[in-house]
């Protein structure tokens, strides 16, 4: 009798727990709602492309940025950089003009003001353009893979739409203007020959 009461109480508790733990839906109904919410990074980037370019129109001139970084790195990082994560890495929107010094297989070196900068033309990877823009908020996305695919789509657009035309025309001695993003580490600040991931490149006639 005592055992019977024990088992009955256990079954009631288990039943109540299960009832409050789960719910059932037809699978096809659930899948249909999932498909609607599937994230299309390429379409998302197409939609934000104009805003992205507008954001980079407000980029800081690279020599002036570097002067500020040499004078007060902490304040410059807090005022000028963007980053989705916490830590020492900051991404900056930069622009500038300069004369082409070298056209290499993977990059183009230009003399902008008093220092050389490296415009990447082959290895367009990472989150620099996305993060420096300051347009993306991490909480707007359910999955980190969606965030990553935004960067992939931006980089692919740069690789396919910007770089090929520029690479065919550029030669040593050309005067070019650029906009792009750089990644800097606050704890190990290295301002020698920065690597710029471009979003706009123009050969000035």
């Amino acid at each position, binding site marked *: 009798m005592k055992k019977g009461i024990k088992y009955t109480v256990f079954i009631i508790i288990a039943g109540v727990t299960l009832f*409050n*733990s*789960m*719910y*059932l839906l*037809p*699978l096809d109904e659930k899948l249909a709602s999932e498909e609607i919410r599937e994230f299309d990074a390429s379409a998302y980037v197409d939609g934000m492309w104009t805003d992205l370019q507008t954001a980079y129109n407000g980029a800081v001139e690279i020599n002036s940025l570097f002067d500020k970084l040499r004078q007060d790195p902490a304040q410059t990082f807090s005022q000028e950089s963007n980053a989705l994560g916490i830590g020492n890495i900051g991404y900056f929107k930069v622009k500038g003009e300069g004369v082409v010094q070298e056209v290499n297989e993977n990059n183009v070196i230009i003399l902008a003001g008093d220092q050389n900068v490296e415009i990447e033309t082959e290895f367009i990877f990472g989150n620099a353009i996305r993060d420096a823009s300051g347009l993306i908020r991490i909480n707007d996305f359910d*999955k*980190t893979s969606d965030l990553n695919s935004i960067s992939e789509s931006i980089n692919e657009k740069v690789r396919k739409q910007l770089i090929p035309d520029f690479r065919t025309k550029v030669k040593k001695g050309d005067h070019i203007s650029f906009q792009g993003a750089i990644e800097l580490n606050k704890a190990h600040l290295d301002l020698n020959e920065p690597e710029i991931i471009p979003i706009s490149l123009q050969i000035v006639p």
Partner: protein
Amino acid sequence: MLTLKKYSNIARFQSLIALFLMCLALALMTDNFMTTDNFWNVMRQISVNVCISVGMTLVILTAGIDLSVGSILAFCGAVTAGLLKYGIAIPEVNLFVGFTVFGVIVSGFVAGGALGFVNGYAITKFKVPPFVATLAMLTMARGFTMLWTKGHPITGLGESFGFLGTGWFLGIPMPVWVSGLVVIIAVVVTSKTRFGRYIYAIGGNENAARLSGIPINKIKIWVYVLAGVLAAVGGLLVTARLDSAQPNAGISYELDAIAAVVIGGTSLAGGRGTILGTVLGAVIIGVLNNGLVLLDVSPFWQQVIKGLVILLAVIIDKTNKRGE
């Protein structure tokens, strides 16, 4: 000259004295240590370790060890997040089983308890040494986590689940409430129940306990199940706080838990120690971690210093025992 009585009084409070001196030094050496924000930050950080360490204390009191708690934490966090986010699809019957927040919490506990049961069963039925059995579970649970998550974090778990890790209730962070509840239950269980007395008896002298009629295997299995469930509690707190289940979460958490237990005065030989001592050990580890960060000590040196502190705690404990 110190009399024996005075010496034993100092020895009894040595962890508290060490904590007080550490807090005093950090208050003098940093600007941010003695702030309310930092206090709650430290309390939130140690909450996870407190939960795991309480389970580890029960295991060590039986003269065992559980190296798998970090991996179990990761697995339970991943199971919880996966069920909450994706549910279970059964295409054969066109059915989707979704889980509520309450449901995933229960599922996490069941997963942790099940892995703990496997540990306990291997140790008691097949006489596998606890070190080996739980080391095997450490790698298996990590593998299960990778299989479940396919190596990717599971994020975006919603506000109601996130409240468990980031919310506040009556001015106190939720993780502190949860770990406080765990501590209270564990103190009552170890000091006021027959189960608690059996744990001490097994760790003190297993043969004598067996001859006294204590069901050794049953108690040990329950202890490992509880350690698994408490690791699951830690996993839920970490996952809720980060709003993300990371497949590599909890790596080396078992070492912090063992350190808290040892610093708290629990004997690795079993049979001697308290839950409150472990809580004090976890606070010391938490304050040490926080202090080293505030002092901008390199992460590599932080590991060296933590190791030295653990070694020092064991040496002092041994010296005290010889004195007794």
